[in-house]
């Protein structure tokens, strides 16, 4: 009964979305107020119906109702409750429902808190948002009904894929989708503005919190996914340039560009048409990611089941959702007159370079992702594009971007003093050079990117700190004055400083982890040990253990250095009971300078075990840096001037330089 109600709720949501997509749009064109105001209750009702459907599906998972097909395929009655619940979105149909849920959450939020929006813009934005809903609800109801029943219902399910039974991955999709789909509202705002024919500073301010919220969630989602891969896959890696990873990375890159260019629209009334284009493209990349992952068009270790009809449907959705706005853009954008002029060497100029580089980097990732497909279609050859390609293109382009990132905040709007900025960054340059020399000293024959990466990482880190100290004039005046300045610095500024610092930390981490990782593989009998980077890994024992829904061989390593105890590591090799599928559970000891990472493989049948250990320098810095970036996003989001629904105050707030 509950699943049928859920299905029914989806149909009602579709009806609601259809009404919300059409009436307010017509109302806005003809100036019929009541029609425009219809958007608000419709958006809320639509959210209500989808939320009901989602809870219904979650309920079916929670009580293990195996008459629902996807519950049978992705759950088991013995599975821990958290993974029963996360199973709701651990499959194509359910994750699509989550997608739509978040889509409607954003619609309902704008409907409820967007009271300060001009009624026309609000009506059109919500109408566009509903059009996206219509597309996805149709997609779900026609090709991927999450509530499809099995008759007769089996007594037992097939269990969620053991690889997905991990707390990091349980949270990963909701976070990622919050970012992915959050950009839909920015997209809707942009299309509405195109229809309106008006893009101004006020528009940029309305868009900003949504953009920030999406960016922050997307950052968190991507990092959770990376963290999961590091912990769960047992390869000791944290990023593989897999098409699925790229699919989430591209919207992030373009979204980052958007975040910065929206600033120029807000402060200087320039770069409007470019900002609108980025708003459309960011969501376009989200849709592209959805298409790539769900259509099976591209080979990836973790794609959903491929089904050509689904692929065709999403492709059509993508073509309409991006094609129509871009056509409108081609017609309307030339009429958007740019405002403020600026010198090439200025804050605006730096942000233009930031956008140019980010857009180009996105293009390299897109090309790397699609090139295998292009080559296969044209020549029939099958190839794969891996890390080295991205390092030689994306990696190289990232260097000037990171160098520029430290300089940009020093430059004033309109006309900047580059010479002055560089003088103030001398200390950063010296530190960076020192770091690069240390990098070469640590490993002279390492990859060239190691000293370069460390150089730009430290440059950005120190440069950002200098900028912050100058802003609060730390060494100037009484401590009380400094404290006042610290308190009066807007949250948005702290947000920027934190985000830049976070990226600097993460870059240092990525460089270290990428360049200095070392590993050792050995067949060990209990009692034997191996040495890696001065650490002795002694295999103490291997024992059988029993988990909630798996059996495992658990090894016990005692790690020591120069005879002193460092850590106990317990890597496992699990065999889940329902799905005949073994998984590797790495044991990791994290440290500020390096992680020790141990994996156990198969026994040789003569008492020996194949073991693999890694020494992974600075990996923790990546997670910490990402955390700081997320904190930066949240801090900026909490800035009262930009809070969702904050009244538009032009003069007073802008007096404080942000």
């Amino acid at each position, binding site marked *: 009964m509950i699943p049928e109600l859920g299905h029914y709720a989806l149909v009602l949501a579709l009806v609601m979305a259809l009404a919300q997509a059409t009436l307010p749009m017509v109302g806005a064109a003809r100036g019929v107020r009541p029609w425009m105001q219809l958007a608000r209750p419709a958006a809320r009702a639509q959210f209500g119906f989808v939320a009901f459907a989602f809870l219904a599906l979650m309920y079916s998972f929670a009580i293990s109702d195996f008459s629902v097909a996807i519950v049978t395929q992705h759950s088991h009655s013995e599975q821990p409750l958290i993974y029963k619940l996360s199973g709701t979105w651990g499959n194509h149909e359910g994750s699509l429902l989550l997608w739509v849920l978040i889509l409607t959450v954003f619609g309902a939020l704008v409907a409820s808190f967007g009271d300060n929006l001009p009624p026309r813009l609000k009506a059109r934005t919500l109408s566009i948002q509903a059009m996206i809903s219509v597309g996805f609800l149709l997609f779900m109801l026609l090709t991927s009904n999450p509530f499809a029943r099995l008759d007769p219902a089996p007594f037992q399910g097939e269990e969620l894929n053991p690889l997905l039974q991990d707390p990091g991955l349980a949270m990963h999709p909701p976070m990622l989708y919050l970012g992915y789909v959050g950009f839909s509202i920015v997209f809707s705002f942009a299309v509405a503005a195109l229809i309106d024919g008006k893009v101004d500073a006020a528009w940029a301010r309305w868009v900003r919190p949504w953009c920030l919220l999406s960016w922050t969630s997307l950052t968190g989602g991507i990092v959770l996914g990376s963290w999961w891969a590091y912990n769960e896959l047992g390869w000791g890696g944290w990023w593989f340039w897999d098409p699925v990873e790229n699919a989430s990375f591209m919207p992030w890159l373009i979204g980052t560009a958007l975040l910065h260019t929206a600033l120029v629209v807000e402060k200087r009334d320039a770069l409007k048409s470019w900002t609108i284009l980025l708003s459309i493209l960011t969501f*376009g990349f989200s849709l592209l990611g959805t298409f790539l992952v769900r259509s099976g068009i591209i080979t990836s270790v973790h794609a959903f089941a491929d089904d050509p009809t689904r692929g065709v449907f999403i492709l059509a959705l993508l073509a309409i959702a*991006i094609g129509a706005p871009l*056509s409108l853009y*081609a017609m309307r954008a030339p009429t958007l007159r740019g405002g403020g002029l600026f010198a090439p060497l200025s804050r605006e100029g730096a942000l233009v370079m930031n956008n140019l580089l980010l857009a180009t980097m996105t293009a390299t990732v897109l090309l790397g992702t699609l090139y295998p497909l292009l080559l296969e279609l044209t020549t029939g050859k099958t190839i794969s594009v891996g890390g080295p390609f991205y390092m030689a293109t994306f990696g190289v382009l990232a260097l000037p971007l990171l160098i520029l990132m430290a300089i940009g905040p020093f430059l004033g709007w309109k006309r900047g003093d580059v010479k002055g900025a560089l003088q103030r960054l001398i200390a950063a340059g010296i530190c960076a050079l020192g770091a690069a020399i240390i990098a070469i000293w640590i490993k002279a024959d390492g990859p060239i990117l190691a000293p370069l990466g460390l150089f730009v990482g430290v440059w950005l880190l120190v440069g950002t700190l200098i900028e912050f100290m100058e802003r609060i004039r730390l060494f100037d005046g009484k401590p009380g004055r400094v404290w006042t300045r610290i308190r009066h610095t807007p949250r948005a500024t702290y947000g920027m400083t934190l985000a830049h610092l976070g990226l600097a930390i993460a870059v240092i981490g990525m460089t270290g982890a990428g360049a200095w990782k070392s590993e050792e593989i050995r067949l060990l009998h209990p009692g034997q040990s191996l040495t890696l980077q001065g650490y002795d890994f002694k295999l103490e024992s291997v024992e059988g253990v029993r988990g909630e829904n798996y059996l495992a061989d658990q090894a016990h390593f005692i790690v020591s250095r120069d005879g002193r105890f460092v850590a106990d590591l317990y890597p496992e090799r699990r065999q889940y009971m329902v799905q005949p599928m073994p998984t590797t559970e790495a044991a990791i000891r994290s440290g500020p300078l390096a992680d020790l990472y141990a994996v156990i493989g198969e026994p040789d049948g003569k008492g020996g075990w194949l073991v693999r250990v890694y020494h992974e320098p600075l990996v923790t810095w990546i997670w910490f840096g990402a955390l700081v970036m997320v904190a930066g996003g949240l801090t900026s989001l909490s800035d009262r001037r930009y809070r969702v629904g904050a009244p538009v105050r032009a003069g007073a707030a802008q007096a404080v330089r942000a």
Partner: protein
Amino acid sequence: MRRLVFLLPILIVAILVAVFWIGLDPKRDKSVLPSALVGKPAPMIDLPGLHEGAPRLTLESFQGQLVAINFFASWCLPCRAEHPLLKQISAEFGVPIIGIAWKDKPDDSRAFLAELGDPYVATGTDENGRTGIDFGITGIPETFLVDGNGIVRYRFAGPLSPDGLRNQLAPAIAEAKR
């Protein structure tokens, strides 16, 4: 000129969509070639019987008649989906079906058949999957037709659907019977 710049994004997207469209074409790499086994003698089968007290399963005991061999497992959802159709094969076409439980615990296989009905005249257990490898199956379920001389006549990979049964398997059975 200025207007052309603004047309650029839509043009790029149009090209991408066209590429994806071609890429999605289901005919892209489905130049389906018949299985290597078709027309050749079936690999040897010698498996323990699934049911209590059942004799070992061999192909020799079915010599002289057309049989269908169906690989299945209790953990395989598509097998569950095609299961009701298997009875139809024996009922409608008079072809006995041999079941081979592939990489499955015998207890689970028995429970599976007890739950959904047993369409097989004889069932063997291929716990380590060796027979499946001999037959070159790429996944389950798969169904083979073996004629009275022990020659493989047809292979159906994937779950049978009413459509597949009518349009592919039925003609193959008719062909093999001739």
